[in-house]
């Protein structure tokens, strides 16, 4: 089933530290929800809820591995979210550098 990326969902899902941690751990795709839950002091149900939010955002998928179901991070979705903010940051970096050039020009003129 194709996952439709909803960017707001991706950002909202990544805003929680536990969910970010789940995303990190699930990159290998070795653990199921029960095993993931052992890493946290919260209940199994709470971890299950976090995984469901990540799943809806398209950040993780559950895959069958033999008789088990493991949680697997969808690396592509993470990149989309990171990229957006990174690119916007780059845009402003470039603007501020141009501002600096303009200011330096005028102070050089004043020095003359």
């Amino acid at each position: 089933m194709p996952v439709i990326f909803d960017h707001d969902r991706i950002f909202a899902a990544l805003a929680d530290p536990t969910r970010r941690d789940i995303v990190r751990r699930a990159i290998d795709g070795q653990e199921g929800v029960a095993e993931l839950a052992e890493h946290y002091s919260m209940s199994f149900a709470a971890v299950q809820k976090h995984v469901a939010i990540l799943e809806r955002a398209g950040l993780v998928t559950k895959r069958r591995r033999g008789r088990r179901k493991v949680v697997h991070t969808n690396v592509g979705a993470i990149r989309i979210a990171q990229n957006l903010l990174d690119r916007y940051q780059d845009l402003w970096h470039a603007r501020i550098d141009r501002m600096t050039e303009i200011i330096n020009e005028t102070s050089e003129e004043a020095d003359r």
Partner: protein
Amino acid sequence: MTVTAVHKDPKALTMTITAEFEASPERVWQLWADPRQLERWWGPPTYPATFTTHELSPGTRTEYHMTGPEGDQPHGYWDIVEVDPPRLLVFRDGFANEDGSPNEALPEGEGRVTIEAIGGGRTRMSIENRFPSTEAMEQVLAMGMEEGMKQALGQIDAILAEGPARIG
């Protein structure tokens, strides 16, 4: 390095960038208030901006367009919300149609610029960019920015390669 801090908050959909300049707050304010200076930094070298209306007083609309390498001209506007020279500027920015009227199909963002003296003849400027949605962020980025950005970043690298900036 003039940029001193960047704070990205994916949940609030804000990106705040802070920079320091060896200049007075009044000088930094001019970068925003003078349309001729503004158009030298708003667009990347491949998409220079032209500001046709720019008064910087609350309730006014700033109109501009950018000109791309293919002759494409994306239009934009700022609705000026708050002005307190040389300390504060708040504006909502969006995309415009060719006649300058806001393109309501596309979302608006908000920019909040604060400028303060930090001693030693230096000034800190902070810009908080708030987006209504990630789609809005994408559209801003799509507005002919990426291509030019790479070039601009190349220019920065060249400047940095010249060695450390003078201090004090």
